[in-house]
């Protein structure tokens, strides 16, 4: 991508996203060194808040940002001209059509192309933001995508606490610390069922290690 096209994205992250993430929120980051700096790779994260995508992208240095491509719901992010421009140019999403009005193959192709270009896809295998920070059942699309390009590593990432900072339907960000726990990369060179089980188990154990975890409740 030419430098001039990267500039708005870098400025957006430098001036807005990084200050919000690092000054307003507090992040407990576990195993940052496991974050892949180049593709083909898929970041498989659990989903609780609109902040999830921005926080994960904010972990990357400005110079590497152009390689990170969130796969995000078209019906939401492309709902009007402003959000479309913001999503495509400043965040760089690959739009995913959840209602199936657009050819599924086309989305798949864009993702595949990104992997072939050595980019890093950011995917939420739960499908959508879950309720009350609970892990939803994972969808298998991620497995087929990872298999479609040889050598793709899938990095499980568990996040916790961002649902309090900006919950579904919330409009204001309240400062809270959040956990971002990065797991060991998985390979999709295996059957689908064991792969999905590994991914699920990894996300669950990463979630359990979070300081702001949900079972930090008072004993009754």
């Amino acid at each position: 991508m030419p430098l001039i096209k990267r500039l708005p994205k870098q400025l957006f992250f430098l001036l807005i996203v990084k200050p919000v993430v690092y000054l307003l929120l507090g992040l407990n980051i576990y195993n940052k060194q496991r974050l892949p700096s180049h593709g083909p790779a898929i970041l498989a994260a659990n989903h609780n808040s609109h902040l999830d995508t921005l926080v994960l992208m904010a972990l990357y240095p400005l110079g590497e940002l152009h390689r990170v491509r969130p796969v995000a719901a078209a019906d939401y992010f492309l709902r009007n001209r402003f959000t479309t421009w913001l999503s495509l140019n400043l965040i760089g999403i690959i739009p995913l059509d959840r209602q199936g009005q657009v050819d599924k193959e086309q989305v798949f192709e864009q993702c595949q192309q990104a992997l072939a270009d050595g980019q890093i896809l950011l995917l939420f295998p739960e499908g959508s933001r879950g309720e009350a920070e609970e892990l939803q059942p994972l969808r298998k699309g991620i497995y087929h995508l990872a298999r479609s390009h040889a050598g793709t590593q899938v990095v499980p990432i568990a996040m916790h606490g961002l649902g309090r900072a900006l919950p579904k339907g919330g409009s204001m960000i309240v400062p809270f610390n959040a956990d971002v726990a990065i797991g060991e990369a998985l390979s999709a060179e295996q059957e689908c069922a064991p792969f999905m089980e590994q991914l699920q188990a990894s996300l669950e154990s990463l979630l359990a290690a979070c300081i702001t975890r949900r079972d930090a409740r008072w004993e009754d």
Partner: protein
Amino acid sequence: MDIGLPFMLDLTPNTLCAMLVVVAMLVIASVTQLLLRSRLSDDGYLELKQRINSWWVMVGVVFTALMIGPTASLIFFTILSFIALREFFSILPVRVTDRRLILALYLAVPLQYYWVGMGWYGMFIVFIPVYLFLLIPFGLLMLGETKGFIRAVGSYQWATMTTVFAISHVAYLLMLPAEENPAGGGVGLVIYLVFLTQFNDVAQYIWGKKFGNRKIVPAISPNKTWAGFLGGVATTTLFGALLAPWLTPLPWWLGLGAGLLIGLAGFIGDLTVSAVKRDLRIKDTSQLIPGHGGILDRIDSLMYTAPLFFHFLVYTTY
């Protein structure tokens, strides 16, 4: 008694000397750590190195803020309270309905330090313990959720009292009339309090490691022993007396009292945050300071020593 440099107007020679002593202690710690390298396991060495490196960063940040001047120091303590309050809210099981009140409570941080900055002692002392104490339950009931109401009221009040009210006492030391303390000035008072508080932690740890066997409250903190507690408090009391004439307006015998107070309060603060973490089943309050855990893990004793030392000082001297 300023030393003539425009950007260090608040530092007396004694204060500057105390800062150099602290830096010298860190140099000794770093050298010792290098010498110990062969005798420690890889993990043990890495943790020690991380802890000492973090000490360098913490001392560097605090000293820089204190040296630049009162405004920079106030901003530093405002940020410290903000991060500590956020950390407290983040480990508490807060109710989702309370988000609006929590957002409003963050406003208490700049307001409290604004009272400090303008030297409005009367407001500084009643804003959180009186006004917020009464307003937090009202704000919560306006949100309309009664389940868990009492716990929410209690825990938010406690979070604001410890992280904002208590810590702002450190900053108010800088506002006390400097002419009353020609030896150390405001910065001298801050260094006396913060140094003795951290020194007390270390002293209790070392006495406990060397001689401790009878545990005080094994269910809360298995590392706290009677030998550690008594030895630590005795050492801190002694150092309190030695340092007082050098950095504060207190004569040595009142320094004994200040040291004793810091030793006892530091112990209680440390244990109290341990009890909070036990209740929530977490080990550290965050991952902000490598080797130390979170801000609350580091300032737990200061939350108790700061108000007690401040009022001891004001009652006896100002």
